[in-house]
């Protein structure tokens, strides 16, 4: 026991000060995009051509669909005028599918769920995670939210072993045909009222696997989603920020 205590002293207290303080991300971190359509040269579509996932549209001004974006640097590298760049802002989660499409105005971050549900879930939220074709990136980052740095448990949020114990689902992966039945059954087995959280580009739109015949482009059209968390994979802080916004536990 003494060795464990000594090691505990050596390792120290590590939990992040978030949400009280916002941690500084490294310079090269690619979070929320900052778009300056006024810098776009006439007829230039270099960013849209470079994007591997068709996330960029230029009709009616430069826009990025964060549901499809895999946060690779291809578009910002291709853009000669600097109209598109990625900031270190890790806050990305939104409440509605259409809010994933971001223009010059930035992101409309997620709003709290309706008051009735917020009353039920705000202080104790149990989630069941279902990986439906996820590459284990999103799964690993969801698991990381439980470690002592991010410590999801201090907010009363916990990932549980059975859908019967859960208040909702966290879905990752593009939704493979071979997981269709298991995903439906898990959703049915979760007692109501329940919420659905889609995590990562795959769950939001199929990600890099969009339109391949073996999967169904994420949860679009199959489950009613309450929170969309973009990223490939989303940083644990992006996930944590999204969950706290959903529960109305952030001030800004």
């Amino acid at each position, binding site marked *: 026991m003494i*060795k*464990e205590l000594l*090691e*505990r002293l*050596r*390792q120290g207290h*590590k939990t992040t000060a978030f949400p009280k303080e916002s941690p500084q991300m*490294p310079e*090269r*971190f*690619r979070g929320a995009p900052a778009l300056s359509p006024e810098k776009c040269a006439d007829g230039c579509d270099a960013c849209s051509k*470079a*994007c*591997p*996932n068709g996330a960029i549209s230029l009709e009616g001004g430069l826009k990025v669909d964060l549901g499809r974006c*895999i*946060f*690779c*640097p*291809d578009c910002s590298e291709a853009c000669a005028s600097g109209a598109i760049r*990625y900031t270190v802002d890790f806050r990305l989660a939104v409440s509605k599918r259409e809010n994933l499409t971001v223009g010059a105005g930035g992101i409309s971050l997620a709003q709290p769920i309706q008051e009735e549900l917020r009353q039920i879930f705000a202080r104790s939220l149990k989630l069941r*995670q*279902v*990986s*439906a*074709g*996820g*590459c*284990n*990136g999103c*799964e*690993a*980052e*969801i*698991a*990381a939210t439980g*470690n*002592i740095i991010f410590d999801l448990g201090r907010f009363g949020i916990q*990932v549980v*072993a*059975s859908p019967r114990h859960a208040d909702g689902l966290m879905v990752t*992966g*593009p939704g*493979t*045909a*071979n*997981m269709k039945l*298991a995903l439906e059954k*898990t959703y049915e087995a979760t007692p109501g009222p329940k919420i659905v959280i889609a995590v990562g580009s795959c769950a939001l739109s199929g*990600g*890099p*696997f969009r339109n*391949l*015949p*073996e*999967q169904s482009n994420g949860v679009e059209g199959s489950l009613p989603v309450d929170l969309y968390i973009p990223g*490939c*994979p989303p*940083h*644990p802080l992006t996930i944590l920020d999204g969950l706290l916004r959903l529960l109305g536990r952030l001030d800004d």
Partner: protein
Amino acid sequence: MSAQKPLIVKNGEAWPVEIIPLMPFDNFASAVLDEIAGGGRIVSMFAAPGNGARPVIYAALARDKSSDIAVLACQPGAQYRSLTPDAPQAHMFEREIYETWGIKPEGHPWLKPVRFPGKSGGRNVGVADFFRVEGEEVHEVAVGPVHAGVIEPGHFRFQCHGEKVFHLEISLGYQHRGVEASLSGGPDKTALARMETVAGDTTIGHATAYCQLVEGLMGVTAPDRGGAIRAMALEMERLANHTGDLGMLSQDIGYLPPSAFLGRLRGDFLNLTQVICGNRFGRGLVIPGGVRFGLDEKMTADVLGGLNKPGKEAMSAARLLWNKPSVLARFENTGTVSLKDCEALGLVGPTARACGADRDARRDHPVGAYASKPVTVANWGSGDVFARAMVRLLEMKNSLAYLTTLLNESPAGALTTPVGAIKPHHMAISLVEGWRGEICHAAITGPDGRFSCYKVADPSFHNWTGLAMALRGQEISDFPLCNKSFNLSYCGFDL
């Protein structure tokens, strides 16, 4: 002896497809068995469209001692005599070829679906003729596809007598996304993103294997500096995952302090990769021709400093595990795989090294930084959970030392070599020692320089059967511990 000799190539090379001798099946079979008898092992075996109606089966066998890869080909009809009874390491490859192409290996002892691709006439996922032990006191435990933890889906069936497991059968395929098929006709601009997510925790490993392969097909190599940064990222990936694995092993035996420390330290190592390329898993770093991001002097110093403290803390947290008799009692003689089984099944990576098999693609088939700066290979022979934990600990030490050397002696120069066109009618093989074991990518190009076939072999493809072997005679309650000590990828297998 076969009349024709296999084509001998090196890791990362490309060669015209027509110089591979197309052998009659009997010669092919005896040549494969000769290679295995001589210490070779199958790194990949797959079918690809051939000239005429019938597909061609290719086999690539590594000769680890001479850093060579032997490539053989044959063009059987609708069926051939299965190699599996003589060479068990072929079993999964033969099943896969049957599932994809319908070419039947006659005499295969367990010809079952691999990933249930859902084609017409294919079986629904998880519907298979499972092995079954009969008897009054025998019972079956079926688990999954959705497991209790935050992990990927798979289905496991245990045949038990009380607590004792006679056999574990593993049925996967739930994560099947069609990765390989989607690469045919490529590469297009999504190819790299798909390779980075073959197995998300092995982003650097698979992206490097892919880039090395297309570079071979283009006839270019990554510059020294680009190669060194790839090796750094690969070692950081190894370090982060091994650290996490030791934490998970600790958690699964209910010893929580090291689990909490190591879980946090895994994140510290991931954050170093994030400093270099903006993503904790290394997305966007490795590109054909080299790497996208470099390190200046300040960043090199930051990363070195960032490595030092968590490096020491990881070692001191891991020491808790090795100093605790009750931990050692759970690790020792649990889930043992013999060297004989390991060799027969062709296991790879830390799992194989924990059985005493001395193989590591970084040393045996070196490219880039590994060719100029040799790595130290970790070994431990007892084949149990203890050995798999020990190999991880030793590899963490080695990776820390290797990373420090790489960061201190990083070569100057360009990050990338200009890339060109992919050669038509060529084939290439690329081996990378990922943290989970050997990754093999193989591709053949058509007349337009586009992939006519792309084949990925994740280390999990070789090793899942190893987990089934580890459970034999074990108690069912040892399963989580055994499973974590392998920590295999579902999506890397399902593809």
